[in-house]
């Protein structure tokens, strides 16, 4: 920067001194009669209204004191102002950009958002409509710099809307040298003769020109009322949520991931489609059943693997965050992980949920306390899993469990309950009830055919309730025809009056699952809770993976004894309702 040179320093000091003494006309209008000025102004308005009444414009006479009755021609005055017409033109242009579904899709495309020309143009439009013209200007300039003619036209209107005529004309010239943009929605024409009002006549000379004259200035057929484009509040909030103050650029708004999500939602685009992430459910559902079954027999194709993909992405994000001790911005993370923005948001949400990342100031993230805990080694990771489970418990409104298949047995390794979300009473050893419990099914589904047979040969399916499946074929069929990623259910198969759901996950070589139980056989509530469990499974899996680095393989307990390090009451049926978290 030029002001860094020694000479520049001297120059700047002198400049500041000179600027300090640059005040002029300080006393010039000290005695100005503002009351007289207001009376002059009011008289003009009154005279204008009576003229317009006399000319048959509007039936309204002089307003009563305290009343504001706009005369019929007021909007014509507004329309005749160049800056108003320019602002209206820019409103329309921004609105057209924001409203176009195809353009949103283009702007959000992976590899484009948030630094592509289209993204900048769209974001600028959003900021303009959110009443942040300076923020919009920055991104219009960004897009114009990338060669967008529409952006240069927008800047022409933007500066004209502030009556910055010279700057406006500069952008008008720029726009003429740029080739037309491709793939833009059909933008409204820049109003012709926009600047006519600037050169023509002064509206309020004495006598003021009448509204009839103004009407002549207006192109016929244009709606006189300024349309008000109202951005949905959520979209506006998202667009203006990430704000920075820059020494050279002033107030700058950044297109954060929330903006991407809000834009996608507004355009009714499925955010999933934008992340290049195949929708595994849909893909699997399209496969013929035999194929699904065949796919299941190979461990790589198990449903848990699908979740692993997003977990791996999340771990990549975590890796970047933990490298920056002083906090790191989303933009930097995106640059280093090359993840699409929407995948990044979901990863960040999961990290924040499991306390692996914490927002530190606007737009910056640091490693969360869970990461520090696991670094400590002794039980920290386990406590971390416990915290995540407690969070999930409150989210689903039911007791939640983590179970693992180790050495051929079902083992509940951790759980979280509460007085309102009691654990299921273990009236039969869980190890013998794999065929009847959601947990057992979610573990069995991850085994291949032989391992499943082996398990059932050691634990013969016993009928616990009228709903229990005791036939091996029926059970296997249920496992194989279950939608990938859909939770496995226990509909009063283990105990009457209790329903469960479990989601397969795997943080290590052993099959694992996260499950919930409800003492109310309400299928609607169960499905709802299972959906939440499904979406939070990633957070649990993450916590398990991070904890796994410091945790030994859990003891092969009496199931339900939950590895009670703090000596909490042991069994799943412990009924120690006071526990909020086991760990």
């Amino acid at each position, binding site marked *: *920067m*030029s002001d860094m040179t020694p000479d*520049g320093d*001297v*120059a*700047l000091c*002198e*400049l*500041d001194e*000179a*600027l*300090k*003494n*640059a*005040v*002029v*006309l*300080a006393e*010039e*209008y000290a005695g*100005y009669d*503002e*009351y007289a*000025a207001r*009376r*002059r*102004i*009011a*008289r*003009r*308005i*009154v005279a*204008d209204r009576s003229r317009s009444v006399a000319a048959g414009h509007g039936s309204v006479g*002089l*307003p009563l*004191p*305290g009343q*504001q009755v*706009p005369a019929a021609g007021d909007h014509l005055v*507004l329309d005749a*102002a160049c800056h108003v017409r320019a602002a209206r033109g820019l409103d329309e242009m921004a609105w057209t950009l924001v409203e176009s579904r195809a353009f949103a899709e283009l702007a959000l495309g992976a590899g484009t958002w948030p630094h592509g020309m289209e993204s900048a143009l769209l974001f600028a439009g959003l900021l303009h409509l959110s009443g942040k*013209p300076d923020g919009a200007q920055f991104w219009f300039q960004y897009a114009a710099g990338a060669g967008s003619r529409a952006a240069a036209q927008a800047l022409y209107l933007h500066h004209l*809307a*502030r*009556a*910055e*005529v010279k*700057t406006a004309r500069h952008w008008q010239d720029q726009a003429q040298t740029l080739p037309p943009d491709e793939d833009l929605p059909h933008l409204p024409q820049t109003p012709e003769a926009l600047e006519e*009002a*600037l050169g023509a*006549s*002064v509206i*309020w000379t004495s006598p003021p020109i009448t509204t009839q004259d103004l009407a002549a200035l207006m192109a016929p057929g244009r709606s006189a009322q*300024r349309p008000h484009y109202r951005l949905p509040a959520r979209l506006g909030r998202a667009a203006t949520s990430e704000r920075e*103050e820059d*020494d*050279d*650029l*002033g*107030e700058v708004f950044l297109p954060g991931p929330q903006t991407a999500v809000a834009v996608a939602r507004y355009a009714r685009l499925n955010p999933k489609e934008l992340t290049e992430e195949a929708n595994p459910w849909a893909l699997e559902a399209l496969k013929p059943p035999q194929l699904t079954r065949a796919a299941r027999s190979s461990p790589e194709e198990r449903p848990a693997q699908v979740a692993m993909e997003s977990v791996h992405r999340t771990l990549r994000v975590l890796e970047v965050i933990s490298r920056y001790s002083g906090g790191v911005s989303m933009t930097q993370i995106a640059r280093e992980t090359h993840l699409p923005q929407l995948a990044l948001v979901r990863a960040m949400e999961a990290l924040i949920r499991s306390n692996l990342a914490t927002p530190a100031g606007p737009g910056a993230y640091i490693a969360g306390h869970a990461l520090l805990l696991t670094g400590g080694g002794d039980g920290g990771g386990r406590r971390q899993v416990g915290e995540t489970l407690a969070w999930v418990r409150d989210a689903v409104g039911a007791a939640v469990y983590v179970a693992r298949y180790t050495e051929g047995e079902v083992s509940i390794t951790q759980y979280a309950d509460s007085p309102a979300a009691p654990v299921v009473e273990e009236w039969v050893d869980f190890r013998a009830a794999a065929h009847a419990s959601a947990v057992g099914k979610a573990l069995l589904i991850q085994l291949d055919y032989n391992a499943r047979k082996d398990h059932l040969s050691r634990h013969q399916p016993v009928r616990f309730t009228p709903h229990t499946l005791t036939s091996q074929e029926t059970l296997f069929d249920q496992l194989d025809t279950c939608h990938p990623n859909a939770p496995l259910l226990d509909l009063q198969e283990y105990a009457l009056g209790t329903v469960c759901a479990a989601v397969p996950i795997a943080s290590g070589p052993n099959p694992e699952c996260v499950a919930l139980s409800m003492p109310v056989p309400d299928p609607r509530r169960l499905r709802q809770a299972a959906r939440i469990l499904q979406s939070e499974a990633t957070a649990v899996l993450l916590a398990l993976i991070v904890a796994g680095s410091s945790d030994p393989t859990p003891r092969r307990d009496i199931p339900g004894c939950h590895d009670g390090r703090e000596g909490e009451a042991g069994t799943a049926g412990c009924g120690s309702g006071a526990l909020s978290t086991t760990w």
Partner: protein
Amino acid sequence: MNEGEFDPSGDQAVSSELAGVLPVDFTAFHSQQHRAYLRYAHLQLGNAKDAEEIADDVFTFLLKVWPQALREASLHAFAWAALREHVERRLAVLERPVAMVETAWFAALRRSSRERLELLESKLGLYAAIAELSERQYDVVLLMFLLGNNCDTVARMMGIAPATVRSHIRGARRALSRKLGVDWIPGEEKDQ
């Protein structure tokens, strides 16, 4: 309004009608902004008569469209644009360039006739350099230094963020020191 404010020649009926035309918030806005608008217009147009006419025109326009003006994202930014446009129009009609440099310099001359002449000459250079700034920087510098407002006031008047005002000042200082650095600052002023 109280009795004392009314034009003695105007009768009471007209006065109360006028009061009905002037919304309270408009009166407040006018009272708060009129001097700054007058001084800005005066600098641009070079004389008090034009400045007063422009101020009247701008505020008449604002009063005429007051309900719509209040619906704008920033009333101040809207009003500022109206002021700029009126000044631009008047300059176009008069076929005159912006008069700021001379106006400011003569005003400075009148105010500080005791100052050394070279100091005034340097001021002429400063005003000329300011006149070459981009419009936004020009407005910010004018409002801040020539008209003596603080950063927050300037931000409010123009309807922009204080951080943006500061960034314009920074940019303006760099541009000014570049312009002045060569032929002005390292010159005779340096060893005073």
